[in-house]
């Protein structure tokens, strides 16, 4: 049988991507590129109010406008639209409001859809929006989480009686995995308490969402710019009551997601309903401003942490109390996002007592949901900031404090206080390598020199020694967390008569390079050329089962299913090979694409067997004429990539300007299938994490209007805003999957944010600063320097700092 010891030809090679050929020549199939005979276009009218009752909608003028076929309001769809799904009821008593795709009586965030026009052209549909007149009765907005849960607060959903959706608690004493955290705090020699704000972010994938629905076939076909075609199909069936087998969903080329396209959207549901109603294909493509204001946002938590330690630096307890902003509704996995972080606050450290509680809060803002890392960046940020704060409190070198508390490489597998079992890791090795590449000691010397001579530009060094849980997820774990589905993935192999191979995967790539990586993996396992493999994905007709792509799960779960299917193909081919070579199957070994009779040079290639099976003229009795196989893989554990990120930041103390001078990261993602793709994932992840630290924030004004509703205001960094990074790796294979791989999609984002903020705080700590709220704009950094100490509240609502847009206060501060 094939084993991992077999010489590996493709895995590990920096293969250039198969996907590129079409993408660099413009031969793309973005959803918005699709044009069908008779296709109509839809435009949405959205609420400018954050919280209001709809008292009247007059559509009469719009209906008369040229080219308009239909104008619908929430009242028209009330009976058919159902409620958008939330698949993650985190507690039994979780409060969840009805979530109509189109608002019926009340709007609960600015950007919510209140009406739609279907017309011959997109321009005519947009023109007709002007002809719709909506009367609103304003309701009080609910914007601040702390105020929202205070007694007597205005309510987002009065019928729920509260703005609290749910409170989820983990306590190590109750779970029997550790001590009582309050006792640890009470008896601690040192405690440090901090409150951090995880600002609201927007995924800001480059391809705006688009959906086309064709109702003219026997199956209704939906093309959508989604990460989750399989989940979408299931949820359309469950939400709208359409028979599942009558729906086909296709995710064609999808231009990025980062969690932002892990959703069942109002726009998808409305387009589906209108196409069905009109009996003609309908397309809806959002504008960028619609995307920024109404596609789900991410993060938005208030994190209160208390860490307890002995004077020698031994951490004795950690208490985490969160408020998490749900926005106005619970979308697909909204309530579960902060809970994913619950298992990661203890991070790489041996913490004997741990308590986590999170209260999910409704506000009149855009719903939040998954954004790259989903819960884990928040956790990593908080604990890595706390380790620096504790080190400062103790007067310890921050890396030494970490080393004192982290899990040593010989202690794996290690079961943490939050119940996860880390299979492998080597924090010492990654840190040593990173320190060397960074010239840690040299930069520390320079920092001391600059401080001594009172340089106006101060140097700070930020550390982030992170781990994350990825490869979502063992189905039993998801079950224990009340998630609405499993965490398996499906894969299949079709052996074509000419020796070519089709690989079918339930993973749904949107930039990750699965076509390339899966080809490498299958090429090695089946011994067929890389070029002879075609990877099919993203269409419920060709890849019938799947749970799609998010949570760095594709390689560690999806590719394992493909690998298992390949093994089944080999098993199926074996008796046929034996029959063809007139030997016993037990005498065969499979290597390099060939079955060889042990001890001889007689062999038959698997592609020859594929042709023989196609002909089926002479097969052993009882053997079906097919080598095709499929498999469903359910992981036994998460995978736990880790790494050490070091950031050197120069802070101009006169202007507050931050310049990233160098950034080194050494990531351990286990075995690497394609180093080129891994490096690319790390680069992109780093920039998203750094952007949280320095630039990005979704800012609302006091009336609940998003002020960062364009890419001029929401500061997605450009090339000129970023440095080059030094990336390297250590390789500690995961022991929980056949390839020894770990996920890499989220690592850079998770690790980099605290590295940057730690560097900034480190640069100006001697001014009495112990925190700078994100994004660390020049203004905030400067004010922290001026004001010393806790800058936390600071000026909070200015939009990033890019073009200086509007001032929410309406003038000079």
């Amino acid at each position: 049988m094939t084993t991992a010891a077999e010489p590996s030809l493709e895995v590990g090679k920096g293969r250039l991507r198969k996907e590129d050929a079409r993408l660099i020549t413009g031969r793309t199939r973005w959803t918005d590129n699709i044009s069908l005979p008779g296709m109509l276009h839809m435009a949405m009218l959205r609420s400018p109010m954050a919280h209001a009752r709809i008292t009247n909608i007059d559509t009469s003028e719009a209906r008369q406008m040229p080219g308009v076929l239909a104008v619908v309001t929430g009242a028209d769809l009330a009976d058919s639209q159902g409620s958008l799904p939330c698949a993650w009821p985190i507690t039994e008593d979780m409060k969840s409001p009805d979530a109509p795709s189109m608002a019926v009586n009340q709007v609960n965030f600015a950007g919510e859809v209140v009406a739609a026009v279907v017309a011959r052209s997109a321009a005519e549909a947009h023109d007709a929006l002007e002809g719709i007149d909506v009367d609103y009765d304003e309701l009080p907005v609910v914007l601040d989480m702390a105020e929202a849960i205070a007694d007597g607060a205005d309510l987002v959903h009065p019928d729920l009686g509260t703005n609290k959706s749910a409170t989820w608690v983990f306590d190590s004493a109750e779970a029997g995995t550790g001590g009582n955290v309050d006792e640890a705090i009470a008896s601690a020699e040192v405690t440090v308490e901090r409150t951090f704000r995880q600002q609201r972010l927007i995924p800001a994938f480059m391809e705006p969402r688009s959906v086309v629905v064709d109702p003219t076939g026997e199956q209704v076909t939906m093309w959508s710019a989604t990460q989750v075609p399989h989940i979408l199909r299931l949820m359309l069936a469950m939400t709208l009551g359409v028979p599942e087998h009558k729906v086909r969903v296709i995710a064609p080329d999808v231009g990025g997601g980062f969690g932002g396209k892990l959703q069942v959207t109002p726009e998808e549901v409305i387009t589906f309903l209108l196409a069905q109603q009109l009996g003609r294909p309908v397309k809806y493509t959002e504008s960028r401003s619609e995307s920024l204001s109404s596609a789900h946002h991410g993060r938005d938590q208030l994190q209160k942490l208390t860490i307890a330690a002995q004077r020698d630096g031994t951490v004795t307890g950690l208490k985490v109390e969160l408020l998490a902003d749900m926005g106005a509704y619970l979308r697909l996995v909204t309530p579960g996002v902060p809970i994913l972080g619950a298992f990661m606050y203890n991070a790489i450290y041996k913490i004997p007592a741990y308590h986590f509680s999170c209260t999910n809060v409704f506000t009149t803002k855009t719903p939040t949901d998954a954004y790259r890392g989903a819960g884990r960046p928040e956790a990593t940020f908080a604990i890595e900031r706390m380790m620096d704060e504790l080190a400062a409190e103790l007067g310890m070198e921050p890396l030494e404090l970490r080393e004192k508390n982290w899990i040593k490489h010989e202690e794996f597998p290690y079961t943490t206080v939050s119940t996860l079992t880390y299979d492998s890791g080597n924090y010492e090795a990654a840190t040593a390598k990173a320190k060397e590449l960074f010239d840690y000691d040299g930069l520390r010397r320079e920092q001391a020199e600059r401080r001594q001579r009172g340089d106006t530009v101060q140097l700070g060094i930020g550390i982030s020694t992170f781990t994350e849980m990825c490869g979502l997820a063992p189905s039993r774990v998801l079950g224990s967390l009340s998630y609405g589905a499993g965490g398996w993935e499906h894969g299949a192999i079709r052996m074509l008569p000419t020796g070519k191979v089709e690989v079918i995967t339930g993973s749904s790539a949107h930039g990750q390079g699965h076509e390339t990586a899966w080809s490498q993996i299958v090429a090695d396992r089946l011994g067929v050329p890389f070029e002879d493999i075609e990877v099919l994905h993203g269409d419920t007709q060709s890849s019938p089962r799947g749970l799609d792509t998010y949570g760095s799960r594709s390689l560690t779960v999806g590719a394992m299913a493909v690998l298992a299917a390949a093994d089944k193909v080999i098993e199926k081919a074996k008796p046929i090979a034996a029959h063809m070579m007139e030997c016993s199957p037990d005498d065969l070994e499979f290597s390099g694409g060939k079955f060889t009779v042990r001890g001889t040079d007689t062999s038959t290639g698997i592609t020859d067997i594929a042709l023989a099976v196609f002909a089926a003229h002479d097969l052993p009795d009882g053997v079906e004429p097919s080598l095709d196989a499929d498999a469903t893989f359910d992981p036994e554990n998460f995978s736990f990539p880790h790494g050490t990120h070091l950031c050197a930041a120069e802070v101009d103390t006169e202007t507050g300007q931050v310049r990233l001078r160098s950034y080194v990261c050494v990531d351990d993602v286990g075995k690497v299938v394609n180093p080129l793709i891994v490096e690319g994932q790390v680069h992109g992840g780093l920039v998203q994490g750094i952007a949280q630290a320095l630039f990005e924030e979704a800012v609302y004004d006091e009336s609940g209007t998003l002020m960062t509703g364009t890419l001029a205001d929401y500061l997605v960094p450009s090339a000129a805003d970023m440095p080059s990074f030094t990336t390297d790796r250590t390789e500690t294979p995961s022991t929980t999957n056949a390839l020894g791989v770990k996920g890499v999609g989220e690592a850079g984002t998770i690790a980099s944010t605290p590295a940057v903020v730690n560097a900034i705080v480190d640069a100006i700590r001697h001014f009495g600063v112990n925190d700078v709220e994100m994004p660390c704009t020049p203004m905030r950094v400067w004010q922290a320097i001026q004001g010393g100490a806790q800058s936390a509240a600071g000026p909070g609502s200015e939009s990033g700092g890019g073009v200086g847009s509007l001032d929410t206060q309406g003038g000079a501060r």
Partner: protein
Amino acid sequence: MRITVTVDGTTYTDEVEPRLLLVQYLRERLGKVGTVVGCDTSNCGACTVHLDGHSVKSCSVLAVQADGCEVTTIEGLARDGQLHPVQRAFHDNHALQCGFCTPGMIMQSIDLLAENSDPDEQAVREGIEGNLCRCTGYQNIVRAVRDAAHEMRPGAGPEAERMNEDVIRGAQAGVHRS
């Protein structure tokens, strides 16, 4: 209004509404869907094409303004089945992931190289700062552009892009020039 525009070597004459954007004309009227729309404030650069050899954000140009002009899109770069050196460099350097920003990024990079045939890292970063990418972190894009610069000496530019008759005839005849 009636306009005549040459796009990727083919001349089109059309009646268009005055408000029609060049990118809408390219996508909706000519089927040149390789050029995409990423925003509505001309910040993202995904729609970048060349107008008479120089890069423009085609969401910021009216179709009528392109009357009498020559437009090159990502779909018109490859010649005789040969990728443009910048296209090849993007592939070789893994300078794209989802690929949505890629057409605009490539068109802008070519324009940058026409102005500066040997840009250093900072010059590349500043030269493409009007084009946003959310996937790559830009590092490999910068590497690709500099790589292409070395491949392309003495440089790209309006001249290198002009569809002269020889080229068009060659392309139609399927002739592969070295």
